[in-house]
């Protein structure tokens, strides 16, 4: 009973906030609407008994959306939504596609003969996940690790305009970096 209340109490705000993401004029509000939606998703995951993943989703999404808000304000027109405007294209077609996708998904969900539950959840799903990632799913873990590492390198390369030759001179011999702002290491 209580679980049902919690489910609906999280599910409705999740979807409502998801819709509001695209309805708010203010980019700041849109970002935090998305955060609300994803926090509710984290709550649902907690409800399903995945403590670790649920809390990690809350942690990651909070930080991610807080950072995202910076970029939203930086690059988007109308970050505070003081000037109502729409920036959409192809609204009708998209609505039709999405309605169709939703209908197909619903039909599938309701009509599919879902298998019954096999096995019981382990006492500690977190331990289970860790053992799995470090055992049979090692390849997944390594791929994820590499992907994350590649992302770090790629994003820095894409976003910065200054390489080490700009900072330390053509022969890389400059003792202090030629930066706009001096850092804390005294270099």
């Amino acid at each position, binding site marked *: 009973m209580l679980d049902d209340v919690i489910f609906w109490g999280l599910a409705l705000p999740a979807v409502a906030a998801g819709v509001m993401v695209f309805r708010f004029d203010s980019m*700041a509000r849109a970002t*935090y609407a998305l955060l609300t939606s994803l926090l509710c998703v984290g709550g649902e995951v907690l409800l399903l008994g995945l403590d670790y993943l649920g809390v990690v989703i*809350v942690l990651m999404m*909070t*930080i991610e959306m*807080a*950072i995202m808000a910076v970029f939203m304000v930086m690059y988007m027109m109308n970050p*505070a939504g003081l000037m109502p405007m729409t920036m959409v294209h192809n609204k009708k077609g998209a609505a039709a596609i999405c309605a169709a996708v939703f209908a197909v998904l619903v039909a599938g969900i309701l009509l599919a003969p879902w298998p019954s539950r096999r096995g019981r959840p382990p006492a500690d799903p977190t331990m289970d996940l860790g053992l799995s990632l470090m055992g049979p799913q090692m390849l997944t873990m390594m791929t994820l690790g590499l992907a994350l590492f590649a992302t770090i390198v790629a994003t820095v390369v894409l976003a910065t305009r200054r390489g080490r030759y700009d900072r330390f001179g053509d022969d890389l011999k400059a003792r202090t970096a030629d930066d706009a702002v001096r850092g804390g290491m005294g270099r």
Partner: protein
Amino acid sequence: MPDAEPLWVTVVLPLALAVAAVTAAGFDAVLSGSAERGPAGSVREAGLRALSPLREALRLLVQQPRRTRAADRLLGRLGVLLVPVAAVLAGAVLPWGFRAVSDPSVGIVWFNAMEALAWAAVWMAGWGPNSALSLIGGYRFLAQGLAYELPHMFAITTAALGAESLRVGDVVAAQDGLWFAVWMPAAFVVYLLSALAMAFWGPFEYPVSRDAAGGASAELAGVDRLVFLGGRWLLLVVTAGFSVPLFLGGGHGPLLPGWAWTLIKTAAVLALLVAGRRALPVLRMERYMEVAWMVLVPLTLLQALFVAVVVLNR
């Protein structure tokens, strides 16, 4: 050993945190009073100075809140409220002695997630009033977050690694003999730094610092200001208090009962932070960022490696 507590504890928790926050703020007021006006002449004078946080709170309650033009009041209010809420939620896994309001199996991650809410909170509070200085303050906290969060995560992961559990109760139990602070000193020091940074207090009050006329709090008045700045003290108490179960052996100690040791250790950590603050200027993030990423991150990684090797050979 750790046990879930009855419901009334959830009511007591915010009150206890508030009392601790007022005490810490009073101690701070005495110290800054002696810097501004010379040492207190009498005990009564010192007592009066220690009461000044309460008087400030009363004054802010009487003051009317105010609005600014074209403000985003929804986000602004939400941000202000979220600061104390995050502090209390994080405090839920804080053990008193050996009992916490709740001791979930992933308590450490929970603590980390709740203090991360401060990222959103400070930014929203700075964004809300539609004012340049407060927005600068809000952005500063994000920069600060990027600087402190990774070393912080590695530091608390190290403690969890030492106990081989994410449950706070297990971490305390694992320190029955030797405190983690003894054989994880780097993680402990980094944790104390990030505790200050999370609470954006003291040397890390860059987001609300004086040079931007109060930064994220520049436009807050009345109750808003009280909730925001009071929530900051709550956060400080919670983050400082969490160093006790993580690194200082929680309630373990000779003679006295567990809750008394927790109290003594928490008070000692808070006193250290409040007194240490007097010796430091505000650390600006354009300088601290480089230190955090080039010194603290490798340092905490090495610390974690060391602990991992010890644990594997145990």
